[in-house]
Structures are given as structure tokens and as C-alpha cells.
């Protein structure tokens, strides 16, 4: 059978980097091909070439056996290629029809928009592929999962045969991911073909027909999910054996370190983001906060660390009230914070690594005497931390922007862990990192817990929360739906809680009913 799409020897160089090295790829009609690889492996570059955002230096693209030249996204769309981006390209205040027809408007009577015609077509597509989308719905009213379907409709509206999906599951709840996989299967049953980009092994095993692993710009292996072994795939991706499971002992929690009582946080637009929540974190335990992105976790963390004001409620750290205290006061109590957006909040990117390593201790001894900085001490500190935390950097004085994501995160971890801390607030500590770095950060978190540090872990990766936490709190629309024991709860239960479904569990578990038994 002839492939619907074939890439032959695609090579793309950026100065100093070989992003794609003679990649061959075949996609057959009616299959889901998973492109598995770490960040920076070159999968996004490859897809951007296919979608016309880049031009390849070497190699050719064939569609149905015919060579084609793709210079820009319009060429790609005309060739029947569509892409669902990780970040949606939708206008929130427009309705579905307007978003879908944007750039390809139907007109009638010499220039007037023909929305009805487009809406009819959208309805047809929605029914054919079981997408369940109302053409008149306003985008901002739709949940993320449905917005993604609108993106898919947009592509189908342009009559694409080949769909590229870039990390489509990153923004979804587990249930929404299942729905997405169903839709993907409906699509291929109707004769479409899909290239699915991801770094999540579980998803690949679940929905792909064929798996292609890319590392360092090269295809390093191909497999069918039936006879692939996750451990081996991970090793292929990273280039060395990887420990997928986090090894940890049972927690031995001690006294309360962080206590939050009836906390309410309101954002600038007077919208309630954190709604009357209470919990505590004890020394030597990890409390995980699970939830879909945007359910108040960000605001909760910002409030706990002094970056946002609390409207109501009380926060105390080791018995000292810290409600609405300045960030520095909180830091000096022994609170460390790994921020959600490391490039925005955690690092000063143009500054050297060594300055970033003292970002919140620069004014203390030995880094400063009075107001005079001590360059030698700052440098020694950097050299030591670079060694201890295995930060891969050419030197301690290069800007931290030049480091890879994983190493940037290591700079933050090194900075926060190198001072005596009692409480660690880690928000999305492994977002966007490669498997190797994730493994490293997880190990460090467990070590810190075993040292008797209290850890509040906020993550939208359910697997991460389940693996690391001793107890799990689920946030939904600013409230904590439940606090449950990590050993007992199932992924399905958490998924339901994250979606705010099953109010019965909600009321029942408002007070933690399953008391964590300390087994020593």
C-alpha cells in the first residue's frame, strides 16, 4: 500500500544544532502514528517543516506518492495537512462558526457573511465524527476539551486528510483524554490519518497504531504498541535506562508545618479563584494538589508565598501567621518555592547562573557584607551547587537563558534546596522537562521529604501527583473537593473529582474520612 504521506531524508540545521537528521517517515491512510520523543528531540521541528513554518535544508515531502513543495502553512492546508497546536488558536469572544470560518469565509449577496452555510457544514462535521459541538456556542464558554474539538473541526472544515496533533493531551483531564482518543479513532475509521506528537508513554501505548521514537534529531526506533515495552521505549527516548517508578518509603509525618484555614483569594477582576479552603501539611509528608489547570492552584500558591493577597482566611507556617506577609518574610521562615512558570517567576533569564543561584539570599552573609557584594563567595557558591546538583552549564557566569529547561529547573532546585528549609511549595516542578530531569527532580523531592521537610506539590500531571504524594487534595473551581490517601484512591476516582463530578464523594470527603495511619 502506498503511504498517504512520506518524508524522505528530512534534514534541518540551525547554527550549531542539527534539529532533524535525515528523518524518514511514512504515514498510511487510516492510522495513528505516534511521534515519541523528549523535548528538543526534534519532533516539533519536523512537524513545523511539514506544516510549512520551516523549510527543510534537505529531503523531500511526498503526498500520495507525489512530491510537493511546502513553503508556508497555506501550502500545507492546500495539501490536506492540518495541525492542532498545543495552544489553541481561537478567539474567545467569537462563536464556533466564526472561529471556524475565519480566514475562509463564505459570503453571499456580494460580500455578506454566510454564517448559516458554514454553521450547517460544521454541524455535519460534528455529527459525522461524533464531536458534539454546537456551532453557535461562544468559545470562552466551552471547556478546554470542547475547545480542542473546535480546533479539530477547523482542520476538517479545510478538508484536511492528515491531522498533526501536538501534545494534545497536555491540557486535558484524564476523562477528556479518553474522549479525545475516541474521537481520534472515529477520525481514522472515517479514513483520516493522524500524526500524534507526545512524550507520554502511557498515551502512546493506549492509542497509537505505530510508534516512532525520535532522539537527537534522528529516528532511533519504531515499534507497534502490542509488542512494545514502556521501559524499553523510555530508554530509547532518553538514550539510557530510566527508572519509571518512584521508589519511596512510607511517610513518617511529624508536626504541622503549613496550616491553611478558610483561605479565599480573589483576583484582579474580583473573581474568586480560591474559595474557602483549609488544609495542613506536616513535616515529612508530601501533600499533592491535583486538578486541571486553572482551578485556583496558581492563585493558591501565589497567596501562600506572598505574591498575592488573601481576601479571607489564615495561613501559618510553623505557628507563625504569614497571611499577606511579604515574600521575603515568608522565605526567611524557611519556605522554599519552585514556581509554576520558571522562566517568568523563578529565574532572571539574562542574568548569570551564579546570580540566579543567590536570587533570594544575595543580601545575606556570606554573599554580602553590608551592602557590598562578595563576588568570590558568590562564585564559590555557584561552583559548589553546579557540582552538587549536576547543573549542565559551560560556566557559572553564562546567562541562565542559555541552559536547557531541565538545567534551568535544576538551578531553581539548587537555589531553594541549598538553604535550610522547613516547607517546600513546588508548583509544576517537572512541567516541560525530559524524562531524565523528571526522574532527577522526583528523587530530590522524596529525599527532601525524608529529611523531614513538608512538601506541598501542585501538579496537573495526575501520574506525578499519585506517585509522589502521601495525601492528595483535589482542587476544582477554587475549592478542595476532597483530601484522600494516596495509597487508597484510584486514578478514576481522582479523575472524577478533578472534573467536579460526583458530588456525593464531594460532600462525603469534605472532611478527610480516610485517616492516614502512620505505619512505622
Amino acid at each position: 500500500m502506498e503511504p498517504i504521506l512520506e518524508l524522505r531524508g528530512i534534514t534541518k540545521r540551525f547554527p550549531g544544532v542539527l534539529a532533524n537528521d535525515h528523518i524518514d517517515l511514512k504515514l498510511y491512510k487510516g492510522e495513528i502514528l505516534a511521534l515519541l520523543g523528549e523535548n528538543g528531540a526534534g519532533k516539533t521541528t519536523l512537524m513545523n517543516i511539514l506544516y510549512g513554518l520551516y523549510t527543510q535544508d534537505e529531503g523531500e515531502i511526498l503526498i500520495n506518492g507525489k512530491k510537493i513543495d511546502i513553503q508556508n502553512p497555506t501550502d500545507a492546508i492546500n495539501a490536506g495537512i492540518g495541525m492542532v497546536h498545543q495552544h489553541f488558536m481561537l478567539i474567545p469572544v467569537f462563536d464556533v462558526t466564526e472561529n471556524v470560518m475565519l480566514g475562509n469565509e463564505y459570503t453571499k449577496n456580494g460580500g455578506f457573511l454566510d454564517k448559516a452555510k458554514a454553521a450547517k457544514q460544521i454541524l455535519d462535521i460534528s455529527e459525522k465524527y461524533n464531536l458534539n459541538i454546537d456551532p453557535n456556542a461562544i468559545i470562552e464558554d466551552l471547556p478546554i476539551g470542547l475547545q480542542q474539538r473546535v480546533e479539530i473541526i477547523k482542520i476538517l472544515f479545510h478538508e484536511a486528510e492528515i491531522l498533526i496533533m501536538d501534545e494534545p493531551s497536555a491540557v486535558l483531564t484524564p476523562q477528556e483524554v479518553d474522549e479525545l482518543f475516541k474521537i481520534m479513532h472515529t477520525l481514522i475509521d472515517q479514513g483520516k490519518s493522524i500524526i500524534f506528537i507526545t512524550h507520554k508513554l502511557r498515551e502512546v501505548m493506549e492509542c497509537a497504531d505505530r510508534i516512532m521514537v525520535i532522539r537527537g534529531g534522528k529516528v532511533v526506533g519504531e515499534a507497534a504498541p502490542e509488542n512494545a515495552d514502556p521501559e524499553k521505549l523510555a530508554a530509547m527516548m532518553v538514550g539510557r535506562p530510566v527508572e519509571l517508578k518512584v521508589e519511596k518509603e512510607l511517610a513518617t509525618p511529624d508536626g504541622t508545618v503549613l496550616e491553611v484555614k478558610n483561605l479565599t483569594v480573589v483576583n484582579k477582576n474580583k473573581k474568586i479563584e480560591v474559595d474557602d479552603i483549609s488544609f495542613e501539611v506536616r513535616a515529612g509528608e508530601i501533600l499533592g494538589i491535583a486538578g486541571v489547570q486553572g482551578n485556583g492552584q496558581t492563585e493558591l500558591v501565589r497567596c501562600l508565598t506572598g505574591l498575592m493577597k488573601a481576601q479571607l482566611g489564615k495561613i501559618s507556617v510553623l505557628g507563625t501567621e504569614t497571611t499577606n506577609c511579604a515574600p521575603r518574610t515568608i522565605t526567611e521562615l524557611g519556605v522554599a518555592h519552585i514556581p509554576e512558570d520558571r522562566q517568568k517567576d523563578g529565574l532572571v533569564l539574562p542574568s548569570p547562573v551564579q546570580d540566579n543561584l543567590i536570587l533570594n539570599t544575595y543580601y545575606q552573609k556570606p554573599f554580602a557584607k553590608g551592602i557590598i557584594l562578595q563576588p568570590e563567595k558568590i562564585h564559590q557558591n555557584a561552583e559548589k551547587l553546579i557540582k552538587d546538583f549536576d547543573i549542565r552549564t559551560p560556566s557559572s557566569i553564562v546567562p541562565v537563558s542559555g541552559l536547557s529547561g531541565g538545567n534551568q529547573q535544576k538551578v531553581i532546585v539548587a537555589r531553594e534546596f541549598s538553604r535550610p528549609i522547613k516547607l517546600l511549595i513546588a508548583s509544576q516542578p517537572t512541567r516541560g522537562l525530559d524524562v531524565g530531569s523528571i526522574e532527577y527532580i522526583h528523587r530530590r523531592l522524596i529525599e527532601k521529604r525524608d529529611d523531614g521537610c513538608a512538601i506541598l506539590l501542585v501538579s496537573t500531571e495526575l501520574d506525578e501527583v499519585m506517585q509522589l504524594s502521601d495525601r492528595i487534595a483535589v482542587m476544582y473551581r477554587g475549592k478542595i473537593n476532597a483530601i484522600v490517601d494516596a495509597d487508597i484512591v484510584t486514578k478514576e476516582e481522582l479523575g472524577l473529582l478533578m472534573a467536579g463530578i460526583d458530588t456525593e464523594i464531594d460532600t462525603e470527603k469534605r472532611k478527610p474520612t480516610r485517616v492516614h495511619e502512620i505505619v512505622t
Partner: protein
Amino acid sequence: MEEKVDSGKKNFFKIFYEEISKSSFTIIILAIFTGLILGGIIACATTKEIYDAFGESFSTGIIESLKFIWKTYSSLFRGSFGNPKEMVDSLFSGDSALIRKAFKPFLESLVVTTPYLITGVAIALGFQAGVLNMGGEGQLFMGSIMAGWAGWTFKGLPPIIHVPLALLIGVLAGALWGFIPGWLKAKTGSHEVITTIMMNYISFSLSQYLITGPFQDPNESFKTRFIEESAHLFRFFEDPLRLHIGFIIAIAVAVIAWYVLYKTTWGFEFRNVGLNPDASKYAGINASLVTILAMTFSGAIAGLSGAVEMLGVNFRAVQSLTTGYGWDAIAIALLAKNHPLVVIITAMLFGFMRQGSRIMQINTGIPIDIISILQAFILFFIAAPAIIRTIYRLKNPKETEPEVEISVSGEKL
């Protein structure tokens, strides 16, 4: 309240500023070079003799043009540095009058450089802390007039007290003019580009009122009284050489600013707030306070610049529209990439060009404005580095960073 310091939104000035800070020194030097060439072409294009020469024949035209450009720039050079031959000869002759005459252009250039240098450091300091102080001009006006007031009001003081007192009053006036926009930015989120420009107008009108009203010389309209002799800055040579201790003060200000910025915890806070206010807040730095302090210091230094001009050169305030120092200082700071020590060099570039152009105008008839055109070209090329990269086939530094790949896909690192 910390939330109010706006950091996410980019405006025109911010983009321009970031673009310039990213450009390398190679670009800056090539931009100056290209600016000089284009300046020469413009000078030719505005001169009648060149057209006449081209009327004769093309080759005569080219030769005349080259001669003319040589004449322009050499008289610019002689005007700013002096005639090298005369300088050497005078040294050998040992005649102090001759030496003074030969070195006068160079020393005068240093006098002209002084306000550029101090104001340039003021603006650079603000930029480093992320505040775009467009109010150097107004702060300088306030510093100047208030130093003048102190200069003629206090009588009978010894110079050792009178001079520092007058300077201090000038500094305080400038600091107030910087504090107000800084405070407004930190507390209300108003953009300092707007407020500092507004403060300029207030300062112009206020000084106009003072010069024509309370401070007016009883014997002469539209001018203030002269400051007391005891408030004059120390001059190194006899008249007509005007080089005064202000130039040393200017160098000291640049060095102190550099030390504070790069060697102290305050500087650490200033620079990091300037580079990333969000991360600075995360790290416990009081970003609002830094904003207010940075504007206040920036204003204070600009005020000092005005005070030094008053006590060192002018001795009285005259009704005038604008000196332009506050505006040129922005260009000087940007050219130096906001490094106070590099500001010494870029301020000299501006000061020497300004001084040299006066001589050039006398010798060649080319108007002083050519210097403004030249400076505009240089800034233009620095702001649009793509042009310089294309002309000189430089590689785009951005392409070496794989981040390009990531930003296009919309995927964060």
C-alpha cells in the same frame, strides 16, 4: 500594591529599548561607521558646489565629493580635538598662551561632554532598573534653576560650603522631579514614559515663570541674576578656557554608578528588577520600592547635571526652550547599553561631535544640524539592526539559539 508595577505589557519604548540592549557592540560600531558615511552623503547632497562639479563631469563630481567629505570630517575633528600639528608645536614652543590656544577645542569638548555624561548616567541607571526615564530634560531644568537660586540667594558663604550646598539643592530638585513619576508608577501603575514627559512640561513652564517672575534680574528681562562668585565651580585654567571641576564630578558619578550597580546589593536589586520584575518579586525584592528609588536617583543625577552646568558654565538661567541634553542622554545611555563606564565614551562621542560641529559650520558652512542627522542615523541603524546585519553580512545571533524553534511552535521550554 506590588501588583501595580506593570511588567507584562510591552509598549513602543520597551520594545525599542530591548532591541537596543540586545544589539552587540559590533553593531553599534558599524552603525556609527555607516552613519558617518551617510552623513557625508547628505552633506554633499545639500551643497551647491557638489552639484556644479557633477555638472562638469561625473568623475569631477566624485572627486569633489570626496574632498568635501574629507574637509567636513577633518574640520569636525579639528573642531573637537584640535589641530594635531599645532598641539605638538605649541608643546615644543613652551609658550603657555599657545598651548592653551591649541588645546582649547579639546578642553572645550570636555566642557560640552560634562552634561551629556552626567545625564547619560542618570538615564542609564534608570534603564538598568527597568524605568524608562524620559524626563531627564525636566529634571535637569529643575536642578539648574534651583542650584542657581542657591547660587545667588546665599551670600558671603565660603566656596567650600556654597558650591556643595548649591549642588545639593540642584540634586534634590531633580530627585523630586524623578520621585513623583516613580511614586506614581509604583502606586498607581501609570506609565513613567508618559508621566516623565508631562513632568518635563511642568518643569519648562515653571522655570519660565521663575525666570520672568520671582527670579528675574531687576536690570535685565527674561534672565535671572548671576550667581555669587563663591558658588562658581573651580576652573582648571584661566579664561577663556572653561574646563571646570564638573568634568571630574561627571567621571566620578559614572564610576560610583557603576560600583553601586555591579558591586552592591542595591545594584543587584536594581538590575534584577530591570531584567525581570516578576522573578524579583518572587525572590522577595520590593520591586515597587526599587522603581521609586531608581526614578529618584535617576532624577537626582539629572538634577546634578543641571546644577553643574549652572555653577560651572552658565552662572545664570536664560529663558530658553530646551537644551536637548535630556533627550540626547537617552541615546547616549542606549549606545552604551546602559553601562555607566561605557557612557563616558558615548557621552564623549556626542560632546565632541557637538563641539566640533560649531567649528565645522564656520569652516565649511555645513550647518550644525548635520550632527543631529548623523546621530539620528546612528540610532536608526542600532534600532534596526537587520539593516546593519544585511549590509555587513553579519549572522543573526537569534538563529544560533534553538529557542526559535520552540517559540514558533508555541511550546514553552
